[in-house]
């Protein structure tokens, strides 16, 4: 266990190191940060002077060494736009994103499991076809359209839900201000969470359906039937538990991916999270923020994967973590 976590920590550090090199080396292609910092009538000479001041004219190696030196002390540089440590800025926005991802995951879990199980148990019913038809639709419609359409329907036409932002927040612990504990905050969460969930939902329904169908054909499910067990127990204990093993593995990766997908959702709904922040940072060529975001997301991926492996080991008694780390 300890060995497993230590290995993961090492892997995580390597991942983040690689990300930092890659993101650092592409930053020259992102544009000129100075352009976004100054007005149109500022002369080229003036800009050059500022660029020098900010060390942007130094050779790559010098810049990267400086960056690494600071990064080792937990300092990923200051955001040009926010004029604050990039990591602080991102961490301040992280609760918003994590709440959104959490809510979307919840929706995915609550919808995909019953739907997937239903499709597996009743492969020929009309409702199954309806679900699968919808999931094809869901895969093919871009999230941007889903989001805009839901805003027009629920905010404008019906007036039930707010169209943007996070709504009322209450402080929870430390600097975490949450919208999960106010009615207003929850109302604001609904549309973005559904939009975000809609990206992954079809995938999960199909995944659960196919895994479940497979499990339903296994010997132990047949044996469970031969034992005289009731259907509910066979489906929801014997079959579902086994179905969830591969789903958890895939799901973990997908939740990581979802953090990346928040870029789109957050932009549409003006959700003040990391994803939106990142897109803005790209537009503004706020390179320290871009690099820091990529590193943080890399870290999230590593953490999520570690949690998934831990969870997997918890459910699957045949897996010992030490071995799975190899």
């Amino acid at each position: 266990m300890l060995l497993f976590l230590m290995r993961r920590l090492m892997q995580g550090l390597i991942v983040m190191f690689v990300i930092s090199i890659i993101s650092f080396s592409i930053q020259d292609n992102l544009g000129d940060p100075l352009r976004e910092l100054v007005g149109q009538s500022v002369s080229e000479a003036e800009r050059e002077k500022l660029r020098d001041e900010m060390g942007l004219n130094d050779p790559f190696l010098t810049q990267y060494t400086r960056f690494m030196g600071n990064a080792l002390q937990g300092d990923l540089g200051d955001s040009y736009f926010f004029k604050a440590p990039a990591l602080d800025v991102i961490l301040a926005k992280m609760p918003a994103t994590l709440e959104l991802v959490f809510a979307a995951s919840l929706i995915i879990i609550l919808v995909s499991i019953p739907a997937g199980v239903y499709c597996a148990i009743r492969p020929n019913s009309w409702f199954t076809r309806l679900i699968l038809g919808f999931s094809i639709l869901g895969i093919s419609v871009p999230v941007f359209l889903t989001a805009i359409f839901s805003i027009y329907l629920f905010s404008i036409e019906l007036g039930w839900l707010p169209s943007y932002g996070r709504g009322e927040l209450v402080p929870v612990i430390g600097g975490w201000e949450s919208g999960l504990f106010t009615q207003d905050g929850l109302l604001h969460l609904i549309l973005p969470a559904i939009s975000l969930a809609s990206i992954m939902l079809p995938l999960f329904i199909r995944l659960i359906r196919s895994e479940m169908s497979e499990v339903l054909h296994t010997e132990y499910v047949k044996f469970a039937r031969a034992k005289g067990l009731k259907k509910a127990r066979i489906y929801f204990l014997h079959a579902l538990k086994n179905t969830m093993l591969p789903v958890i593995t895939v799901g973990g990766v997908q939740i990581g991916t979802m953090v990346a997908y928040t870029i789109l959702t957050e932009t549409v709904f003006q959700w003040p999270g990391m994803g939106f922040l990142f897109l803005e940072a790209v537009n503004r060529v706020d390179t320290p923020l871009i690099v820091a975001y990529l590193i943080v997301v890399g870290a999230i991926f590593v953490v999520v994967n570690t949690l998934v492996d831990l969870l997997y080991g918890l459910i699957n008694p045949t897996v010992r973590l030490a071995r799975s780390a190899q």
Partner: protein
Amino acid sequence: MSLLEVEGLRIEFPSRHGTAVAVKGVSFTLEKGEILGLVGESGAGKSTVGNAVIDLLSPPGVVAGGNIKLDGQAISGLSGEAIRRVRGRRIGFIFQDPMTSLNPLLTIETQMVETIMVNLGLDKAAAYKKSIELLASVGIAEPEVRIRQYPHQFSGGMRQRVVIAIALSGDPELIIADEPTTALDVSIQNQILELIRKLCKERDVGCLLVTHDMGVIANVTDRVAVMYMGDLVELGSTEQILCRPEHPYTQSLISAVPRTDIKLHRFPRVEYIEKEQGRHIDVKNHWLGQKEQLSELNAEISDRALLTVKDVNLRFETQSAFLEKNRRYVQASNQVSFEVRAGETFGLVGESGSGKSTIARIIAGLYPPDSGLIEFAGQDITRLTEKQRKPFRRQIQMVFQNPYSSMNARMTVQDIIAEPIRFHQLAESERQINSIVADLLDHVGLGRGAGVKYPHEFSGGQRQRISIARALATRPRFLICDEPTSALDVSVQAQILNLLKDLQEELGLTMLFISHDLPVILQMCDRIGVMKMGTLVEVGDTDRIFSDPHHEYTRHLINMMPRVENLSRSGLDIEASVAAHS
């Protein structure tokens, strides 16, 4: 009134391409306390009958005619809920593979207690108590500890005991055991069969034992029903079926069982089914023999061994840990030494986990040993780089137990067989490759047209032929066969083993033949090595090993060997043989 009456049972599998009739009007009865063997090869419909009794036919199978009565009461055509009450409560079921019939994610306790609660209506505490008793009665030590464990913590035999305990947990009147010992080692197999027999007799429970294995039939059944292609061709007492089979199919089936008393030149075929496929190879004019004349090569080194295995050790880490002292290992190969002479077949025998497959993989270069030496034709091949090993890869080929998992399902058979030819650049043109592959397919009896198909379109026996063709494609000198027929029916086994024998004779192949099946080893091998827990306990000529085993473990294995010919010689003597084993 019999316990189970099956009358005119007809089972169909309708599909878009027409209806397949799996069982064509089968009738038999089964009494309380009686064990009825239902025997036949794959596709005979024997398992389908067993499944139909408790309405567990896999879709789209349906009972299209006939009656099934349990204790005089019709149970075919019952509603879902009514048949559920029969399952577990009145009929217990034991499946073939104990590895897959228990849910891997639930403890034994969960799986037993739920069964008892639903079938006997007991509360949790009472169900737990009964579970412990049942586990004890099927011979599981420390049931209070074991019941908390997961299936993977049990060995195969122990798992099958658990499955039997679960099958008995509803106090059923009838047990259907579908190939209950096929997946188990010989010694375990005997214990399990004995257990089933004992429990049936003690509890006066009827048992329908579905199997393809004549040895199993001989050991435990009272009566036998023989099925062939959906028909019940013969029904009689075990003694009558084994010693005086009347139906020609039964006769040829019994004669195809590898004998344990005398060594035959070739395996008897199940003549009733088919004319032997494949044809003899004219080596002199054939590609397989063109490059080097193996027999000549063999003659050169006849005084020496072609393969020498010396003091080979290998251990696997079963639990990794940061600190050396916390790590656990299993010694898969312990100071193993033997030689394989040119042109002979050397058998490695032992139970699962004895390390015989590990040795095969070490020789093939798939695992590097921790220490020791492997010499092939006088050259040290223990530790070679990939490049150095390449010529040896061509000369040493492997045939695996499960041919399907060793083939890429997305490649055609043509490509699968051509792959090693291309890799070793053994042909000059694509056209030549095509003709070689077609020839090989012909020789293994699949026909030249088989190349365009994919592996999943073939049966298990056919796939094994594909893998043999692939192994031969490099014109190997040395063939390692790792349980090549253990998953196959007797008739297919006979074909494949005969094919290997022919090839060996005509090409001068040297073979390392690994099996847990002693009769097969007896028929195939010139010399034998017996392995137990990573150690080679005894090596000797086949005749000597079988007639005069030196090591106690070898004696034990030979004693456990199911013997059909015992019956044909000495009549119905089950009680005596069971007594001798226990």
